[in-house]
């Protein structure tokens, strides 16, 4: 009995000591956690850098342009096709170029939005690069640089400001403005819902004077989201983990929106959704199988309908109230080009997934004619090709860029030749 008690005592003593030994002190826990957390963060940063992920965020607030690409940023986009780009110190997705134009060089500054920026494809596949290659081949002895000043989501006014504040510094010989459906649509003032909508807006005052308004931008910068953007600026520029977080948050928000809409519970395959998806697929098949001759009725991103040709047609009519602003901006760009002794050309691009804006295109054409600016609309030629071959969900595929270059090159060459006196 005694022995048993003694043994019990020893056991309980042992176990309490073991417990004491097993239970770490609070500072050990904190120290270990900090060390592990640091190691985890560093490992993730290295891993993501090697894999090229977390590089989607590349726009920063800009008091003049509203938003602009971060300088020296490496970007990998995986939304449609996979595209990588290294922005140079001026925030252009190009190799470093000197501000002073080298001798015997002909520079073309291309202005536009995401279609020009082309982060869905590698640089070697975008039309700016392909055009540069073509021109260098066509005009031996002359060195061509086609510089990509496109930024996703820019409206025509922002393109003008980018030309004025950045592109002209590179002494371009020619300015090529690539316009498309959203170029006018995003001129209409709307409350900012994020950085990509916090932009300057433009109005036409007395005597057709162009007025710039920063209310939306400054108001958004004062919101908690705007302030957060300022505070997290360093992380956004340098941390890939942050990039992954921001994409994950966007996806979670998308999921939340679907939940609110009643379509997002899990990977729900409700009858309604199935029928909807089937209709969308049928529509796509219809538009692609007959060589894209038929207008596309439904345009999908995943399971979400974002627009249709009829929607675009209605929108096309609606944005006619902003044509005077477009006119004023084009006149201003023309004036600036004349001052900077460079030619000015306008080219019409197709809209998202091949959609066209006939009325708007006509308006561009008329204005261009009035101010004596060459205008080219090659959308009809592009529409002859199967939609799926030319476009991802919205933007050009590498094939689309190649096709567009083929259409664009003769138009540009005509004016290059004239300018070179050949």
């Amino acid at each position, binding site marked *: 009995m005694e022995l048993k008690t003694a043994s019990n005592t020893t056991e309980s003593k042992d176990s309490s000591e073991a417990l004491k030994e097993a239970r*770490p002190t609070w500072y*050990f*826990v904190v120290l*270990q*956690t900090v*060390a*592990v*957390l640091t190691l*985890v*963060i560093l*490992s*993730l940063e290295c*891993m*993501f850098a*090697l*894999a*090229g*992920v*977390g590089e989607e965020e590349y726009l920063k607030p800009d008091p003049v342009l509203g938003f602009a690409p971060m300088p020296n940023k490496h970007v*990998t986009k*995986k*939304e449609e096709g*996979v595209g990588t780009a290294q922005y140079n110190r001026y925030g252009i997705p190009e190799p470093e170029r000197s501000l002073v134009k080298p001798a015997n060089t002909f520079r073309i500054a291309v202005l536009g939005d995401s279609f020009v920026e082309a982060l869905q494809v590698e640089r070697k596949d975008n039309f700016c690069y392909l055009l540069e290659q073509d021109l260098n081949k066509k005009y031996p002895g002359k060195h061509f640089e086609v510089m990509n000043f496109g930024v996703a989501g820019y409206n025509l006014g922002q393109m003008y400001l980018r030309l004025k504040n950045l592109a002209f510094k590179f002494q371009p010989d020619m300015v090529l403005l690539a316009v498309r459906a959203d170029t006018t649509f995003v001129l209409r003032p709307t409350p900012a819902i994020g950085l990509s909508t916090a932009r300057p807006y433009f109005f036409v005052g007395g005597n057709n004077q162009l007025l710039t308004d920063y209310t939306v931008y400054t108001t958004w910068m004062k919101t908690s989201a705007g302030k957060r953007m300022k505070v997290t600026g360093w992380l956004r520029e340098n941390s*890939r*983990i942050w990039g*992954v977080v921001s*994409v*994950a948050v966007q*996806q*979670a928000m998308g*999921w939340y929106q679907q939940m609110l809409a009643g379509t*997002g*519970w*899990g*990977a*729900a*395959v*409700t*009858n309604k959704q*199935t029928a909807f998806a089937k209709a969308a697929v049928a529509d796509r098949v219809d538009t692609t199988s007959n060589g894209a001759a038929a207008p596309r009725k439904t345009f999908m991103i*995943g399971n979400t309908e974002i627009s249709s040709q009829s929607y675009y047609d209605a929108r096309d009519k609606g944005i006619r109230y902003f044509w005077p602003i477009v006119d004023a901006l084009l006149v201003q760009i023309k004036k600036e080009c004349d001052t900077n002794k460079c030619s000015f050309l306008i080219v019409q691009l197709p809209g998202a997934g091949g959609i066209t804006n006939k009325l708007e295109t006509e308006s561009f054409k008329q204005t261009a004619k009035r101010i004596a600016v060459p205008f080219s609309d090659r959308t009809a030629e592009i529409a002859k090709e199967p939609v799926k071959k030319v476009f991802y969900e919205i933007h050009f595929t590498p094939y689309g860029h190649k096709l567009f270059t083929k259409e664009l090159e003769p138009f540009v060459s005509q004016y290059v030749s004239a300018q070179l006196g050949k």
Partner: protein
Amino acid sequence: MLFSSISYFIFFPIVLALYWVSPVRARRALLLVASYVFYMSWIPAYGLLIMLLTGVNYFLGWAIDSFRKQAKAILLFGLVLNLSTLCFFKYTNFLLASAADLLRSIAPWLAVSIDPSSIQQVNIILPLGISFFAFEFIHYISDVYKGTKPIKSPVDFALFAAFFPSQIAGPIKRYQDFMQQLPNEARFDASMFNQGIVLLLQGLFKKIALSDNLAILANHGFNAGAAATGTADAWLAALAFTFQIYFDFSGYTDMGRGSALMLGYKLPDNFNFPYLATSMSDFWKRWHISLSTWLRDYLYIPLGGGKCSKLRKHYNLMVTMLLGGLWHGAAWHFVAWGGLHGGLLIVNHSYDDFAKQRPLLQQIHAHPLGKLFSALLTFILVLVSWVFFRAETVPHAMQMLNSMFLSLEPSSKVVSQLSTCGPLLVAIGVYSIYAAINSLPKDMPRYGFLRPGLTLTAPARLAIYAGVAFAAIGLAPSAPSPFIYFQF
């Protein structure tokens, strides 16, 4: 709700928290409700189908046990009921399409004119996991017929059938194992919980970082069409699919098993390094173990198994594998896949019989180089068989095989995609390091700190878990692929 979806990562913590704070007696009912919520998040109406099948099979089990004289008839009725439900949902359109094809091909020789287009496809949406439900019900009534005791509590039986971690893609459970674990609900085991988190994260990484990235390569190759697929492309696509399906299915199983462990339940393992198998029969002991053992116990052995003439044994093997192929999907390319495996197993068994009497061959097989050669040969055979599994049709599979072995085209469309495969390559690197650490002997103390749950404090472990989840999310492609086994 996919295990890798945001919905699940909201649903599961809620269920987990409710489960462990609920009184013990309420936990089974809670899990049952959660399982039905999980199932009905797809197509709510099919929850009623599963409920009905569960009720009928529970009653059949009771009836077989209570009326032993009529047990055979009741069993037969149960088998017909479960199999016909499975056939109706899964094979109706396949049978109709096959009948139409057959009519179309024999129409010229028939005196009467039959219009094959009069055979219309029926609009049936396959209830998710129906094959797994059917197999578990068949196992239950068969085992009760053989003499094991049926489950008394209808809640326990319904939970066995609908348990959400194994609901959609298995593993196919055995009710005896499951029932033994029911008392586990009473105690919280921190070590099990920890293992569960590790398995859940391991599965998440396998699924979204490895399988979904491999799917991009495989899809490029298989969707390119014969003309666009060169030899290297076809091999790369087949190789990518070989690993895609492994990481997809084993990832899903890991997530299910991890979830179950966190709830205090152990589900059977479904994989044991299948691509290290040294023969085809070894492969089936390592791949989808719960299915292969089910097929063995409820199809191969009842057919006569291996204890009969050689010819009959081969016939049994072929029938089992053909039906196993058809179980995977209602299409001829799945049947071809099953048939190919059946054929390879027959060759394997015949060779084993041949080698048994030849000591030299046995010595060669025992040598490490012999084992390496066997493993390599088995891997290539399995890889080739996956072409039938992944292809859309048998001619499509033949086109891929033609590109792999005969046409020798230099096109490298898929190979060129490798330059954009940074996330995949990093994911492979990370997983290889993890697998290497995991395969170290457990008694190596200097590596002990790398094993989650041994010496790290809870906050530090939490940091690692968050890091792994983050790595998986970061390396995953923007468009996730659905789980391959969902369609079965």
